[in-house]
C-alpha cells in the first residue's frame, strides 16, 4: 500500500509537464500554418490513441492481440455505411463505430479468452482477415474493393481534425487512466502478472479479460471512424491491413514500452516520423521499416523506450538509497 501511495504522489509531481504539453498542443495550430506538419501531428495523436487503447488489453491485461485492425476496420465501415446507406450523421457515427467495434469483440473474446497461449492473439488476426474478405466480397452492401468515398466528411479543415483528435485522444487517455486507478484496473494487472493467483483470489479472469477487450475495441472502433473521416476514403485493404494497422499498433506500444502509460505516445511519435521519413526511400515497401524496427526493438530494447528509462530511473533512485 505504501508503494501505491508513493506511486500516486509521484504521479502528482508529473502533472506540470503534462499541463505544459497540453497547452502547447492547444496553441500550436494557431501559430503553425504548415499543413504537412499539422497532418503529421494528427497522425501521431491518432496512433498514440490507438496504442493506448491496445495497451489497455495487451500491456496491462497481458492479452496481446495481433488483429486490432478488425475493430478499427469495423468502426470505419460502421460509421461510413450508416452514413451512406441510412443517412445517419457522421457525428453519431463515432459512437456507433465504437459500439460496432465492441460488439464484434464480444464473441471472439468470449471464445478465445477462456484459453491460454497464443489462441487469442492469432484468432483476432484471423478475424481481421475474415472481416476483410467479407467486406471485399459482399459488394452489394460494402462496395467491395471499390471502397467508400465520404463526399462530405464531418469537417473540412485540417485544424478542426486536429482539435477533434486531440479531444478524442485526451478523452481516451483519461478514461483508461481512470479505469486503471479503479478496482478493475488492478484486476487487469493481477491477471497479467499471474492468472492462476488472480483466479485463486476470486477474480473472474475470463470476464475481466473480456471487459478489457471490449473497452479497447470500443476506442479502436471510434478511432477507425476518425480515420475514415480524416482520409475521406476507406477500402478493405487499408482498414483491415495486417501490417499497416494491426502490427503497427503493436509496434507503437512495444517500441514505446509495453504496459507503460506514456509508452504509446513516444512510440507513435517515432513510428510516424520514421515511416514518413522512409516513405521517400522505399515508396512501395514502407512497411519494411516497421518490420526492421520490430526486430531491432525486441532484440535490443525489449522493454521499449519508456520502459527502459523507467528501469534506469528506478535503479538510480535505489542506488541513492531512497
Amino acid at each position, binding site marked *: 500500500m505504501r508503494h501505491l501511495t508513493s506511486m500516486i504522489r509521484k504521479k502528482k509531481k508529473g502533472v506540470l509537464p503534462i499541463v505544459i504539453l497540453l497547452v502547447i498542443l492547444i496553441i500550436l495550430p494557431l501559430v503553425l500554418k504548415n499543413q504537412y506538419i499539422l497532418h503529421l501531428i494528427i497522425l501521431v495523436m491518432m496512433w498514440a490513441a490507438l496504442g493506448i487503447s491496445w495497451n489497455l488489453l495487451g500491456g496491462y491485461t497481458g492479452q*496481446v492481440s495481433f488483429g486490432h485492425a478488425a475493430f478499427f476496420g469495423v468502426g470505419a465501415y460502421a460509421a461510413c455505411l450508416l452514413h451512406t446507406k441510412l443517412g445517419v450523421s457522421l457525428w453519431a457515427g463515432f459512437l456507433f463505430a465504437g459500439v460496432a467495434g465492441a460488439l464484434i469483440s464480444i464473441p471472439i473474446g468470449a471464445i478465445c479468452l477462456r484459453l491460454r*497461449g497464443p489462441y487469442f*492473439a492469432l484468432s483476432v488476426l484471423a478475424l481481421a482477415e475474415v472481416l476483410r474478405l467479407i467486406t471485399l466480397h459482399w459488394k452489394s452492401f460494402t462496395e467491395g474493393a471499390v471502397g467508400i468515398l465520404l463526399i462530405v466528411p464531418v469537417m473540412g479543415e485540417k485544424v478542426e481534425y486536429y482539435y477533434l483528435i486531440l479531444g478524442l485522444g485526451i478523452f481516451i487517455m483519461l478514461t483508461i487512466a481512470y479505469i486503471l486507478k479503479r478496482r478493475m484496473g488492478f484486476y487487469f494487472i493481477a491477471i497479467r502478472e499471474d492468472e492462476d493467483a488472480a483466479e485463486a483470489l476470486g477474480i473472474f479472469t475470463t470476464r475481466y479479460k473480456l471487459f478489457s477487450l471490449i473497452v479497447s475495441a470500443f476506442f479502436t472502433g471510434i478511432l477507425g471512424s476518425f480515420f475514415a473521416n480524416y482520409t475521406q476514403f476507406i477500402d478493405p485493404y487499408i482498414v483491415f491491413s495486417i501490417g499497416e494497422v494491426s502490427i503497427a499498433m503493436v509496434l507503437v506500444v512495444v517500441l514505446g514500452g509495453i504496459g507503460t502509460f506514456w509508452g504509446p505516445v513516444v512510440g507513435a511519435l517515432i513510428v510516424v516520423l520514421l515511416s514518413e521519413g522512409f516513405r521517400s526511400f522505399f515508396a512501395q*515497401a514502407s512497411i*519494411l521499416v516497421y*518490420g*526492421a*524496427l520490430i*526486430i531491432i526493438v525486441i*532484440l535490443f530494447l525489449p522493454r521499449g523506450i519508456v520502459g527502459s528509462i523507467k528501469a534506469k530511473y528506478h535503479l538510480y533512485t535505489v542506488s541513492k538509497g531512497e
Partner: protein
Amino acid sequence: MDISILIQTIVSGILVGGLYALIALGMTLIFGVMRIINLAHGEFLMVGMYTCFWLFKLWGVDPYLSIILSIPLLFFLGSLFQRYVILPVIKSRAPGENQILLTAGIGLVLANVALLLFSPNYFTVLTSYSNATFIFKKISISLPLFWDFLISIGITGILYLFLMKTDVGSSIRAVAQNPDAACLMGINTDRVMIYTFGIGSALVGAAGSLFMPVYYVFPSIGELFTLKAFIVVVLGGMGSAIGALVGGLTLGVAESIGATYISMGLKDGLGFAIFVLVLIFKPSGLVGKTRF
C-alpha cells in the same frame, strides 16, 4: 445435389489439403519444440516459391526438381534466423508475445524485401503439365496436384522416420516434451532448436516448390498462408504432426466445399468458421496430443 460433384469437390479438397498439411507441419514442429507460433512461416513459403520461380525462369529447371535446392536453402535461412535473431530472444526469457512479434517482424521484412526486389506482380511457372488432368472413375484429377499430394505424404513419411528413428529426431522430441529435462540429459537444446527451425523452414520451402506449378507467387502471399497454417495447426492440435495432417485435409475439404457450394471468394471464411467451432468445442484440436 449431384453426388459426383460432391465427390469431385472432396477429392480436390483432399489433394490441396495435402499441401496445407505440409505447410502446417513445419509450423507445428516449431511450435512443439519452441512454443512459439512462427508468423514468418508464410513468408518462408514465399521464399520457397520465388526460388522455384527464378530457377525455372533463368535456367528452365523443372519445379519439382527445384525442391533439391529449395529444401537446403530454406533450411539454411531458417537456422540462420533462429541462431542469430530468435534464439537470443528466447534465451533472454522475453515474454511469449515478444517472440511471436519478432517472427511477425521477420515476416514483414522478408515480404517487403521481396516487394523491392521482385515488384508486386504475380508470377507463375507454366509447364507442360500445369493444366494436365486425368480422369479416374469420372472424377477429374489435376496431375500436378496429384503429384504434390503424393510428394507431401512422402515427405511427411520421411519426417516421421527421421523423428522416430534417428538420434537427432529423438532429441527434438525430447526437447518438445520438456526442454529442461532434455538439457539435463545432456542434449544441446540450443542446437536442437536451430535444427528444428531449419527443418520447419525446409518443409515449407518444399511446399513452396510444390505449390508453384498450380499457384502464383507475389510478395504478400505469406500472410494468407501463415493464417492457413495456423488454422490447420489449431484444427489438428498444436504441436502434433498427425494433427497437422488431419487439420490440413479438413481445411482443404472445407475450403473446396465452400468454393463449390457457397462462393469462391468466401471459401477462406468457411475455414475460419470451422476453426472457431473447434476453439469452442475442442480447443485441444481434433487429434490432440500425439507421439509424432
